[in-house]
């Protein structure tokens, strides 16, 4: 027996299963990062000598990274839109662009981390650095997760397109929602850690 609404939306909810599922997952992610952000607030409020982020961290590099991630969100939407219109080549192109942005973000992040380590700035140095490494590290893991999932769908596109093109479209939409969320977390992290 088939599981209903894997492909098509249920009439009274207007959602297919995976779309509801990813929103619930993202709600849970909001609570995860919410917990960490509240920890940041509590520790900062309780601290007497909280450093100014820009004095320690590299703001221009982070600004560049913000641009890279925002671009990747745009290309992610474009790839889904192209797929809906049946433009397979454009879909693949935008997926590759998203992937490249994801890799670019991680490379820039690695350069930042490397610069910190070379100055002996480790997580154990101060509470600020502990928060910085924990939050950006966890966010980086989410980016890596996104890269893996996007790569998987890019590599298996042809198989999906032959058998169930609608299912691939749904899947790309769901991956996109996740990717935008990861982007959004960075939009919060950037001012919180680097600017404030």
């Amino acid at each position, binding site marked *: 027996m088939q599981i209903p609404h894997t492909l098509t939306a249920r009439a009274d909810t207007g959602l297919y*299963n995976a779309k509801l599922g990813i929103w619930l997952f993202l709600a849970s992610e909001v609570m995860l990062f919410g917990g*960490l952000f509240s920890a940041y607030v509590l*520790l900062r409020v309780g601290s007497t000598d909280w450093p100014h982020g820009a004095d320690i961290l590299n703001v221009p590099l982070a600004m560049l990274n913000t641009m890279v991630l925002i671009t990747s969100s745009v290309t992610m939407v474009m790839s889904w839109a192209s797929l809906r219109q049946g433009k397979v080549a454009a879909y693949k192109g935008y997926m590759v662009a998203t992937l490249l942005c994801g890799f670019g973000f991680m490379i820039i992040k690695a350069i930042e981390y490397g610069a910190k380590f070379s100055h002996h700035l480790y997580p154990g140095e101060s509470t600020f650095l502990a928060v910085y490494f924990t939050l950006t590290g966890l966010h980086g893991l989410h980016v890596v997760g996104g890269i893996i999932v996007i790569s998987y769908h890019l590599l298996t596109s042809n198989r999906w397109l032959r058998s169930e093109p609608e299912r691939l479209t749904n899947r790309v939409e769901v991956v996109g929602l996740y990717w935008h969320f990861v982007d959004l977390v960075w939009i919060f992290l950037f001012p919180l850690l680097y600017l404030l």
Partner: protein
Amino acid sequence: MSQQETLHTHDIQTPHPEAHHQPLGFWRHYIFSTDHKLIGIQYAITSLVFLLFGFFLMMMMRWQLAFPGEVMPLIGGLFGESAMPGGIMVPEFYNSLGAMHGTIMVFLGIVPLGVGAFGNYVMPLQIGAPDMAFPKLNMASYWIYLVGGIVMFAGFFVPGGAANSGWTSYAPLANIATTGQTVWLLGMVFLITSSLLGSVNFITTIIQLRAPGLSLMRLPFFVWAQFVTAFLLLLAFPPLEAAGVMQLMDRLTGTSFFLPSGLVVSGELLTNSGGGSPLLWQHLFWFLAHPEVYVLILPAIGIVAEILANNTRKPLWGYKSLVFSAIFLGFMSFVVWAHHMFLTGMGTTISSFFQATTMIISIPSVIIISVFIITLWGGSIRFTTPMLFAIAFIPMFGIGGLTGLPLGLSTADIHLHDTYYVIGHFHYVVAPGTILALFGGLYYWYPKVTGRKMNDVLGKIHFWGTFVCMNVIFMPMFIQGLAGVSRRLYDGGQQYAHAQGVLEWNLVMSIGAWTMAVFQIPFIWNFFWSIRKGKKVSDNVWEATTLEWTAAPSPPPHGNFTTLPSVHRGPYEYSVPGAPTDFTPQNEPARA
């Protein structure tokens, strides 16, 4: 999965449904199954084993409390020189047992049994769904849970033994504890991931896969209970994961999230950077752990509601009140967490706030109890084995709930905080409350799973023995707690003058615990014996109204229903005037 199979499994247009009746291999069918029923059974068996294991840890602790410092007979020599030299328990090992008893009972026993087992098996059947919305995720959820359990268990074998900072893992104690604590944190990460996958699946299934005609207000209350529980798991667990990540960072990379400046341990100043906050851990921990209490109790309430309606042969009194109480309970459970922290010095203003919300959250709980009591009123009650457990749940949960009120008042809590009174209160909710209800659920749905009933005589021996022993174990805790005996004392309070008058209860409680173990033997025997030898019964043995009984055979086949049912009425139409039987199935079309 091959492309061919993908096509058949997922494409609604495919006109080859017979492809699904191909027998799966042994591994796909029994081990890596995606069938919600088999996953439910896997959860049930694993969690029952963990419950027994957690109970065993507690029985060892009860030896130490009843006979402090004496050689444990028979098994004392089995635990090695570091844990029990000469058969005498060392304090560190006692602490490990305590921490692991709590962790295992809550995270590996009761939640997986109430949610993973009952939720998985019963909920899709009750809503008329062929399976969960994401069967592979469901399978992953079980296997990640099992890995988490094994990791937790492995903690006993690392140097220094398992986690020994209490199930709450309070910082900074847990930060500087032995390696077992790191293992505990890793285990928790697996368990949290498992519950995340499970809760996404449960909510999606309940919203998306309800049978035609099954509106929200026609859902059996058990489904509502699972629905609210899934939201609690989804939203309350991640902050603990965040806290766990931070504690791991503290332990592994030398950060100071939970270590204040200038902390001296064993006469030495810690070299950490400091600036952290031990209170932060408590906030994040209780932000999970208070909703967790409702995760423990709500599935039990759902089970009791089903059994009560069925065995009183009348509709649940106040179904809507029950539903809205459960939803309100879910919401409120997120804003009461700091009532665990009145004595941390967080300030009287905050205490007043959390005291007020705590008093408010008792209202829906009282409504639920009232609904159950009024449901009994005037019913022609069938005293079946599951019904005994369900009825016993009502006063036990009542005692557990009412004894919580003094703890929720910040002034009374000054005296009662961290005493055995807290242990008594919490266990009345979870052990005589939830566990009795879960046992009731096992007896109630066993015929659906196996097609056979469990033996009633053995069931009643199990019930009365367990019921009496649980009260013998937990009632004296209130007496000791009111006298001021602290929890987590390795010698049960021997060295304190104020404890001398109530010390003799330790032996009573211990004998109660060991006797209760004896009364579990008929249950275990019954459980396995009945699989093959139990009395064969019809598909709807309890003459119930909900879909799992009225639309599916026992045991239900792969895909659950031969044709998907459609629903025409509410869940508890018992003794409807003018109806041919005293139960009217939900899927029975309205008569003209």
